[in-house]
Each structure stands twice: as structure tokens, then as C-alpha cells.
């Protein structure tokens, strides 16, 4: 895709080294390589892939399957960040859509208890199609709400989505009546645990969403509009592009992506918990996006970069799990990593790096 961003110098005259260095995909791929090399040395079993019941299993497949929700959220978040905003509510939206799906399936609404009868019957209150539709609709509406607040009410993205980030978990608990709802409906588990041609279903869902997002942003003008809104909203407005609608679209799409993530997550863990579904996903999604080379200030973005960023996070997380590091202890490390990546991409450090490397390059040029 956009492996060589056109800079001031033309592509053909740039040396290969700096072309690789300036590529957006270089850093995330390098990070992935480092982690995989680390695994190869310290946890060789990490790469073992087996076949069971006609489908593949192993840590690498788990990375794909567990990372699928994050990849989806990262795709949505990329669009939002490209418009110069941010969506802090993704975790809460995941919780809301998961809660929605669980409540529709589980007849045990309100204070009613789940009976053995329901457990054995694989029962559902609503047909699967309706469940999926309503779940996606709930998340998309949340995204639309964010988009309206940002584009029409002109509240700063951070504050607008912070409101849903906190209130959304309340809404999710309201839907599930404060309970952790367990799901006993087998067809629903297909999204998070099923396999097609040996690979997890979730990865096909990610591929579909990615293909749609890629097509829309690279084959239609919308991608250009998004970037121009991110670089200069006012100038975009004066060129006659509805800056408001572009933002609205980005936030709605992000809500939609989070909703699918919520569907997969609740299907994967067989339950919906308003407090813990999609916890800290906003952190991981932002981390994935900034690792993928999209700047927090908006403008140029790379969907593939964000997906690779999400893969890096999950490869790292699963490697740490394999080593026995508890999940919550990783939180601080990830936070530091985000800051480091942002600092690495900041103008100050980039200028420093370029100065160091260009000096070497100048010598080579003189030798030619």
C-alpha cells in the first residue's frame, strides 16, 4: 500500500536504506520481528502449530484469534485519529454491544435466574440474525452519538468520548442489570471460536472489514477527505468538503468496528460483563495505531500499519503470558511503550535521527 510516502525528494533518487527507514510499516514490522526472535530463543514452543479436528491450533493462531477484536478496533481508531480526533469510548462500546447480545440471547432478564432447563436447551430468546444486527446497531449508534457530539456540538473529541467512556460502562451494566450474563447458546460461539478452512472465523471478519475500509479509503475520495480533515479542517471546509460529515463517518465507523469486536469478544468468553468487557482497549487501540505510523495529530494514516500494530501487541502479550507474567502487570509497560513510540515519532526525535543518518548518507553521496 503506502510503503513509500512521497516526501520532498522523489522516490527513485532516495537510497534504499532511508526508503525503508521512512516507510510506515518499517517500525511495526521491526517490532514484530524483535518479539518473534525473542520468542524463538526463549520460548521455542511458541511457534508450534498443530492440527486438531481439522483446524489449526497453537500460539500463533491464538495471536490471530485473540488479536482480532483489537485489530478491528484499531482499524476504526485509525480513521478517527486520522481526522485529528480520538475515541476513548471504544472499550465501553465493546461492553455495550456485548451486553446487548447477551441480553437478547439469555432469557434470564432482570432478577430472573438461569434455570437448568435453559442451560441444557441451548435456548435463545431471539434469532441469531437479529442478535447480530442489534448488537452491531447498538455499537454503531454509540459511534454516531460520538460523531454528533464532535462534529455538530463541536465538543473536543477527547471530552466527548470520555463521557461515553465512563457513562457507557454504566449503560452496559444497566442493560445487563449489573450481572455478568453467561451465554449458553452454541451458534453464537461461532464468531469467537469457530473455524473456516482451518483458520479462526474472527480473522475472516477482520479481513472483510479491513478490505472494506481499505477499498473505501484508497479507491474512493473518502480517504483523501479524511486525511485533509486531519491536516487542516478549516481549509478542507473551504474547499467545499463537508468536514462535519467526514468526522461523523469516522466516529460511526469506529463505533461499528468496536461493536463487531464486542460481538467476537463476548462470543469468545461466552459471557458479557459490563465492567470488564473490552477493558483498556482504548489504550491498546491507541498503541496499535501510533505503532502503525499514524500520527496522533491526524493526517496521513495506514490501516495495514495499525493491524500490524495490533498483532505486535498480542504477540507480545501472549509471549508474556507464556512466560507467566500477569495481565495487569503488563499495563504499565504498555503505557510506557505508547509514550516511547509517540516520542520516537515526534518531530524533535525524528529531526535528531535524520540528522544523524543524513550525515552518514552525505558521505556515501560524496563517494559516489
Amino acid at each position, binding site marked *: 500500500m503506502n510503503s513509500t510516502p512521497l516526501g520532498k525528494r522523489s522516490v527513485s533518487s532516495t537510497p534504499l536504506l532511508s526508503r525503508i527507514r521512512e516507510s510506515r510499516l518499517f517500525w511495526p514490522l521491526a517490532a514484530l520481528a524483535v518479539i518473534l526472535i525473542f520468542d524463538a530463543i526463549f520460548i521455542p514452543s511458541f511457534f508450534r502449530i498443530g492440527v486438531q479436528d481439522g483446524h489449526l491450533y497453537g500460539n500463533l493462531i491464538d495471536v490471530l484469534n485473540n488479536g482480532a477484536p483489537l485489530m478491528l478496533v484499531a482499524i476504526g481508531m485509525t480513521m478517527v485519529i486520522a481526522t485529528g480526533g480520538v475515541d476513548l469510548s471504544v472499550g465501553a462500546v465493546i461492553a455495550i454491544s456485548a451486553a446487548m447480545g447477551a441480553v437478547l440471547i439469555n432469557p434470564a432478564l432482570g432478577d430472573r435466574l438461569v434455570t437448568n432447563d435453559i442451560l441444557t436447551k441451548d435456548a435463545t430468546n431471539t434469532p441469531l440474525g437479529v442478535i447480530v444486527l442489534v448488537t452491531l446497531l447498538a455499537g454503531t449508534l454509540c459511534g454516531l452519538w460520538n460523531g454528533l457530539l464532535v462534529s455538530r456540538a463541536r465538543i473536543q473529541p477527547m471530552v466527548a468520548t470520555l*463521557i461515553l467512556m465512563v457513562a457507557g460502562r454504566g449503560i452496559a451494566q444497566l442493560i445487563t442489570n449489573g450481572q455478568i450474563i453467561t451465554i449458553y447458546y452454541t451458534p453464537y460461539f461461532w464468531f469467537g471460536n469457530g473455524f473456516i478452512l482451518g483458520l479462526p472465523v474472527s480473522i475472516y471478519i477482520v479481513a472483510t472489514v479491513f478490505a472494506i475500509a481499505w477499498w473505501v479509503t484508497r479507491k474512493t475520495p473518502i480517504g483523501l477527505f479524511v486525511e485533509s480533515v486531519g491536516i487542516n479542517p478549516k481549509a478542507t471546509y473551504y474547499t467545499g468538503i463537508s468536514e462535519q460529515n467526514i468526522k461523523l463517518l469516522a466516529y460511526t465507523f469506529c463505533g461499528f468496528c468496536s461493536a463487531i469486536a464486542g460481538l467476537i469478544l463476548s462470543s469468545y468468553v461466552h459471557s458479557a460483563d459490563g465492567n470488564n468487557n473490552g477493558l483498556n482497549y482504548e489504550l491498546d487501540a491507541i498503541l496499535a495505531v501510533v505503532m502503525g505510523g499514524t500520527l496522533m495529530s491526524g493526517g496521513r494514516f495506514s490501516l495495514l500499519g495499525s493491524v500490524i500494530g495490533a498483532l505486535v501487541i498480542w504477540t507480545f502479550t501472549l509471549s508474556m503470558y507464556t512466560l507467566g507474567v500477569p495481565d*495487569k*502487570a503488563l499495563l*504499565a*509497560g*504498555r503505557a510506557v511503550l505508547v509514550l516511547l513510540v509517540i516520542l520516537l515519532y515526534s518531530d*524533535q526525535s525524528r529531526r535528531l535521527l535524520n540528522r544523524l543518518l543524513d550525515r552518514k548518507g552525505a558521505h556515501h553521496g560524496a563517494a559516489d
Partner: protein
Amino acid sequence: MAQRTKLFLWRHGPLLTTLSIFILAYFIGAQMYPAMQKPQAFFNLFINNGPLLIISIGMTFVILTGGIDLSVGGVLALTTTASAVLLQNGVSPALVMPLMLIMGTALGCILGCIIHFFKVQPFIATLMGLFFARGIAYIISLTSVTITDSFYKYLALSQVPIPFVPNAYVYLPSLIGPALLLVAIYVSFFTRFGRTVYAIGNNEQSARLMGLPVGRTKIIVYSLSGFCSALAGIVFSISLLAGYGQFATGIELDAIASVVMGGTLLTGGAGNVIGTLFGVLIEGTIISILQYNGTLSSWWTRIGVGVLTLVFIGIQSIFYMQKRHS
């Protein structure tokens, strides 16, 4: 005279709105639940919302410069966990408390430096600060740690009677918030630092051209917020006598909501700390009403705070838009 009244109303419009909403909310609450008419119910607002008031004061300064600090909840949780573990290992409270305050200030200072020197947006730097601090709290202890220190216990149970009001009291740590408020009022209105904060919030570029120390002031403001969060963490751990990484989740929105309700503009440059006090009191009142009701579940407070923030942002934008037009 009429002109002057009008001017007064314009200048203090947001503050007066906040004040009247607080009185209205409290009045409605007292009508619904007669128990709220007791003076102690009012002082309970200070007891229950002590940490929030302290955090909101720090947050007011940050928002006045046009920034934001999302790390407050994390620093609070880290303070409670770290102090609980230190106290459990027999470190004296006289050492723990200053240590925590230094830690909070240092964290805030680091965030301020990242924001100022590397031009990272405030929300992203402080969001990472939030996750970092909570993460460190989890590394220190994955479970809740109880505090059995006798000095902390003494502070937790030390009642201070309110003069002239019979049978009303607050606890000693609840006085920290109001005391800090007085200091904050002095700092924001009567010192050079305070005026610089307002100048940066109004227009950072102009402030720099005027020769004001923009960078230094911003870093101090974030350090101050870190200090306040640590102080709030100490008060929090005294009132609960425990430390845990999951304490005070979502308090950043509570604090932002209080600041916004207090009439401070989210884009910075307008508002004051007195309003923040009433913002905190409004939040406290609404939470009290929900608690007195008894049948409403805890998640309604989260939703309520979200809706309230939104409403006040709406009121603010109407107010300031009209002001700009006139």
C-alpha cells in the same frame, strides 16, 4: 446601577448559574428526603467528596491552561497502594506521606515535561500516565491491601465539631480540601503565577510573546495536579484504610465534570476555583440523592455524571457564544 448589575451578572454568570443549580438540587433533595435537611447531611458532602475536591482543584489549574489531566485517578490509586504497602512494612507515616506527595509531584512533573518539550497532546500523555500509574499499582499489589497503622486510624476517626452548628462534625482529613481551596484562590487571583495560567489558557502564543514563562508554568501546573492527586490519594486511603489499584476508576471524568460545572471553560482561560467547589458540591448532592433513594443502582451515578457533564458543556457554550457575539 442597572448597567452595573448587568455587568456583574455577565461576569459572574457561570458561577451564579452553578451556585443556583447547587441550591436548587439541594433544595429538591431536601424536599424529597427530609433526612437531607439535617446540617450533618451538608457536611457529609465534604466528608464524602474530600478526594474529589482536592483533585478538582488541581484539575482546574490544568484546564485553565487549556490542557487536561487524565492521570489523576491512576496517581490516586498508586498513592493508596504504595502507602498501604509501605505502612504494612512498618514505615512511619511521617515518612510515607511526604514520600507520596513527592512521588505524585514528580509524576506530574514528568508528564508536564513530556507535554511541553515533546509537544505531545496533554490528553494522550496523561492517559498513558493513568495506565502507567494503575499498572505500577497492580505490580505493587494485585489485591487490596489494608492499612492498620495507628496514626492513619486516628486520622480516620478524628471528628472535628463544626462551630455554631450543634451535632455536626467533619473528619480531620476532610478539612484538607477546603484549606487547599483557600490557597488555590490566593494563588490564582493574587499571584503572578495565577495570572500567567489564565494568560496561557487565553492564548499561549500571546503569552509567550509577552515574555511570560509558558513552559515553566505548564510544567508547574501538571506537577501541581500530580501533587493534588497524591494528596487526594492520602485522604482516600485514610478514609477507606486500604490501598488498591482499582480505586477511584472514572474519577477523572468526575473531576472534569466538577470543573466544567464550576464554570471553567474546557478550552482554558476562563473560570475559577470557587466554581469548582460548587461543581463538586453539585456532584456530591446528586450522589447523595441517589443514595437516599436506595433503589437506584450504582451505575446510575456514572450515567448521571456523564449526562450532567454534557448538559453543562452545553450551557457553557451557549453562555460564551453569546458573550462573544455581544
